[in-house]
């Protein structure tokens, strides 16, 4: 197997974008080509979840490759729920590592705000078990609410800890030009003041509005290539060193311990093992905080903190910028936004920016090892990536 490097990156603003999905996908691809100096690619993977349902478009990868005038290179779309992005990066890795292709472009793109919030939430809810969950009105916020209630009871996590995740990630997003929510929030505003219940109403108790990610449009791109091509591109050498993926039961009620996220645990273990590192070696991480509780739970499951202590690390500021392990420097799904199919690629984008030392005000000092956790369904399909800076 050959080593695989990230040679070019690009991203759109994550917000409401009033241009077609194909262009949301093409724009970060164009940026990545300009940045890396590459004018041709061998293959394109497009991660997307909802084009056929929300945007009334199928065959997205064929449309994007033509829009970029990169025909006749091969192209296909990858749909793996909210983990589509990291899944597409995995496909790109396999293509380059195996020797099938030398340069692979991976784009994640989603345009969710073409429909209203109710429709967008319903389309994400189609991830749930059709007969055992969906028919009851179960949505992802509902599953997260039930998970949070148990987690709080078991480990002593409070509404204040959840709000602290939101405050931290909103603050990080203030320094990310591409983030969806450029809006600093305070514990007073979303938790303590008399207006807090108006500012921050309950969505699925105990989860409130600021515990949930926004519905976003956006696209991101990473070009993967061999070491020789990466050297010519002239950017700092960032190697995709570890990939792990694991699944769990479709219906959440079927899990023996409902507060365990076994797929996160296993995917992270595989990713670290392949990269030959320990969780403690990681300098910066992007975790899948679609709900604030998930940042805390994942930080334990991947092995950064002991079980039940993620919220204590958060409280001490260990996961803030300047702490021992900054998490979600981009703002995370919470504040950078969550265009479902694009998220996994956007997480990788942030880690590459950090390892290259290009993150400006949100730069983690001397970051050499970065990690992403891209969480599909309610933890039933998880892909974790480990990136290492060389030289």
């Amino acid at each position: 197997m050959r080593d695989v490097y990230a040679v070019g990156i690009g991203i759109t603003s994550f917000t409401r974008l009033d241009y077609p999905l194909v262009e949301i996908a093409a724009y970060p691809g164009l940026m990545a080509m300009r940045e890396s100096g590459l004018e041709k690619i061998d293959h394109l993977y497009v991660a997307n979840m909802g084009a056929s349902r929300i945007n009334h478009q199928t065959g997205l990868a064929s449309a994007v490759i033509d829009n970029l005038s990169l025909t006749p290179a091969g192209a296909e779309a990858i749909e793996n729920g909210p983990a589509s992005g990291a899944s597409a990066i995995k496909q790109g890795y396999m293509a380059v590592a195996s020797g099938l292709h030398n340069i692979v472009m991976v784009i994640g793109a989603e345009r969710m705000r073409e429909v209203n919030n109710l429709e967008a939430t319903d389309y994400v809810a189609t991830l749930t078990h059709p007969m055992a969950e969906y028919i009851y009105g179960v949505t992802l916020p509902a599953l997260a609410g039930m998970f949070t209630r148990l987690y709080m009871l078991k480990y002593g996590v409070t509404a204040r800890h959840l709000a602290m995740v939101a405050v931290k990630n909103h603050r990080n997003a203030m320094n990310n030009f591409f983030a969806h929510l450029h809006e600093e929030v305070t514990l007073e505003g979303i938790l303590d003041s008399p207006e807090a219940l108006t500012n921050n109403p309950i969505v699925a108790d105990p989860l409130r509005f600021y515990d949930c990610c926004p519905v976003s449009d956006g696209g991101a791109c990473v070009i993967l290539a061999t070491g020789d091509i990466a050297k010519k591109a002239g950017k700092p050498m960032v190697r995709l060193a570890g990939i792990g993926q694991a699944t769990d039961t479709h219906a959440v009620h079927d899990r023996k311990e409902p507060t365990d996220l076994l797929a996160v645990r296993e995917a992270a273990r595989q990713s670290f093992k392949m990269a030959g590192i320990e969780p403690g070696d990681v300098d910066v991480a992007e975790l899948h905080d679609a709900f604030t509780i998930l940042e805390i739970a994942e930080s334990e499951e991947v092995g950064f903190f002991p079980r039940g202590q993620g919220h204590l690390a958060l409280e001490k500021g260990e996961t803030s910028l300047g702490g021992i392990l900054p998490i979600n420097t981009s703002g995370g799904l919470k504040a950078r936004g969550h265009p479902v199919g694009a998220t996994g690629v956007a997480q990788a984008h942030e880690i590459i920016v950090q390892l290259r030392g290009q993150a400006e005000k949100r730069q983690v000092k001397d970051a050499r090892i970065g990690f992403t956790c891209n969480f599909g369904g309610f933890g039933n399909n998880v892909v974790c990536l480990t990136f290492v800076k060389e030289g």
Partner: protein
Amino acid sequence: MEMSIYGYKCIKCGHVQYPYRTICKNCHKNNHNEFEIVPLPKKGKLLTFTHLYAPPSDYEVVSLGLGIVELEDGNRITGQLKIDQPQIGMSVAGRVEVVRRDEYNKYWGIVFYPA
């Protein structure tokens, strides 16, 4: 007629699974459809719950009570709750009712009340 939610009892190992899977999760030994269909118990204990204040557009309610219940046989099931002040660990009893309607269809499922 009293309606039930059904589990799938593996004819090789006797394990009851819900929802349906083609292969038994316990023994992995059975072939397609080698299950006996058995009614699941309706009584159990509430494991966790939420009130969803952003219910899907098929529902004309302010909030939707949802929970996971551990049934008397140890199986777990997700269902709707019609309980004023649910508590984790409380005893509940289920009834099969219409749990969702859209333009064309009615969907039947389990709704839990205080036991």
